[in-house]
């Protein structure tokens, strides 16, 4: 288990460093002086000089990268071009909103999708199975940003049930929860069908295994066989899928944040791109990538902890 952990961790660190390097080179390889791009074409030569020295632009590229990587490791992501506040502080203020949105979206999708898939597999071709099949095809076909826009149209513009914009008053938890409902519904909906379908397919496979027949033959209650013996095995591919799909979840959350004018890391990156505020773009992208890699790593570790066969395959 320990060797597996070390190998897997090493691989993740390598991926994060590669992403960091690519992003860094991308920012340096574009034509033009980064200082001019960051400060705009009308910046004075003195300002450009000051900026270049501050950002180490006068040093060789490899040295710039080493310095930047060193700063990232110690949690220093540089300062905002405009307000000169720490990028890490700004991201810290925003990331909570994104995490809340992603957790709420994934939470309700898992709470509904997994039992739905289980029941559909236990009773194939029942009305429940049909509903879950229609739901999964129907929701997978709708891109998440379209789901957000249509949710906005239905629940805010037409029915006026839910607030259209923002994340609610700071400190007012019920208000924030109400503001969370619609984005979480829109981001999570396509996952309900996806998860139900995935769980159904692997449950059907597992339910045909001899050990499940044995468990039935021992006279165990069907519910105990399904939830105690079949589901823990059938859930494995789904956990991996959730980990792999986390990048898609981030993308969906970015769209939801922009469409619902909700604070969060996606809105932060979008606004910073429009304002050409590179330190924030760079820092936020690094944080988002690290978050993604962290979740994939966690799901892999979880799977290898449940299933010993995976540990020996790397």
């Amino acid at each position, binding site marked *: 288990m320990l060797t597996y952990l070390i190998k897997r961790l090493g691989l993740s660190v390598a991926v994060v460093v590669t*992403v960091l390097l690519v992003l860094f080179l991308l920012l340096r390889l574009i034509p033009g002086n980064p200082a001019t791009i960051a400060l705009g074409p009308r910046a004075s030569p003195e300002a450009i000089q000051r900026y270049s020295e501050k950002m180490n632009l006068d040093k060789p590229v490899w040295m710039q990268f080493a310095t930047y990587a060193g700063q990232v490791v110690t949690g220093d992501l540089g300062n905002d071009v405009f307000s000169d506040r720490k990028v890490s502080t700004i991201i810290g203020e925003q990331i909570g909103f994104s995490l809340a949105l992603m957790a709420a979206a994934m939470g309700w999708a898992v709470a509904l999708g997994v039992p739905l898939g289980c029941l559909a597999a236990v009773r194939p071709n029942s009305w429940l199975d049909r509903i879950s099949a229609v739901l999964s095809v129907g929701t997978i*076909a*709708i891109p998440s940003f*379209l789901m957000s*826009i249509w949710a906005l149209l239905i629940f805010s513009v037409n029915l006026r049930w839910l607030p259209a914009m923002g994340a609610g008053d700071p400190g007012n938890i019920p208000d924030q929860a109400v503001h969370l409902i619609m984005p979480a519904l829109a981001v999570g909906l396509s996952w309900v069908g996806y998860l139900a379908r995935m769980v159904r397919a692997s449950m059907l*496979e597992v339910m045909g295994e001899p050990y499940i027949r044995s468990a039935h033959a021992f006279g165990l209650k069907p519910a105990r066989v399904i939830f105690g013996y079949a589901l823990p095995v059938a859930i494995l591919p789904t956990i991996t899928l959730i980990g792999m799909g986390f990048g898609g979840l981030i993308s969906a959350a970015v769209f939801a944040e922009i469409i619902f004018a909700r604070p969060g890391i996606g809105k932060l990156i979008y606004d910073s791109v429009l304002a050409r505020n590179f330190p924030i773009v760079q820092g936020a992208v690094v944080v988002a*990538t690290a978050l993604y890699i962290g979740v994939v790593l966690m799901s892999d570790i979880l799977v290898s902890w449940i299933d010993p066969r995976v540990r020996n395959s790397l």
Partner: protein
Amino acid sequence: MAFLSGWQGVLGLVLVVAFFASAIFAPLFAPYDPNAMDIPARLSGPSLSHLAGTDQLGRDTLSRLLYGGRVALKIAALGVSLSMVIGLFLGMIAAFGPRWLDALLLLIFDSVRAFPTIILGLATVALTGPSLGLVLVIVIVTSIPQYARVTRTAALSLRGTEFIQAERALGASTARILGHHILPNVVGPLLILAAMDVPVVVSIEAGFSFLGLGVTPPTASWGTILNEGYLVIRDAPWMVVAAGVPLILTTLGFTFLAEALRDVFDPRMTKGR
């Protein structure tokens, strides 16, 4: 044909043909010029003269949607075919090259996939400014890994088989083995993957254009029409409704077609469902 035995396959084929036909023959079907403004008729709802209403400049939404399909088709055709060819090439290199190269390529594939697409797009558009070419590059870069991985897996499993070993014993070069024996065996799975990939590519284009990172106004694209509709969602809700329909139909069409094709090429996949 076998894959037309189920209703999903037929529906998929019909929708895919409709996607191609409406995009290619958009000038014939479109009732108006997509960029012709008619200010007095601005923001008018669906009617017989404007089936899907008009936008804030009085342009006919249906005509713009038809022309928007051409952008989607262009991105889908170029993006899918280029990433498939590059992915095929890289996948074969990974499978038949030295081990360190295989490990390096896998690391790169995983790193590229690690980037949530929209964040990669936002990071690059910050540098280059919005353009359709940028969307195409991002589509290709993010799609290559899956084609390469499928090719690599198929090529690796074939590499040890007896007929490849026999071929090698007869003195065939690696190029001949790859071109004559591996290629025909991976084309099927790759085509299914391509059909699955088209909706992804189309919605990436629409999503990027919606955010103003792709096609720039006044060019009509499903994404820019969605964005224009989003800005007037209270006054002209038909725009966001109408702009979503072709996206959903295209996704359904290609998904059904891909599943029907998969059932034909790989009957084992159907057993569990």
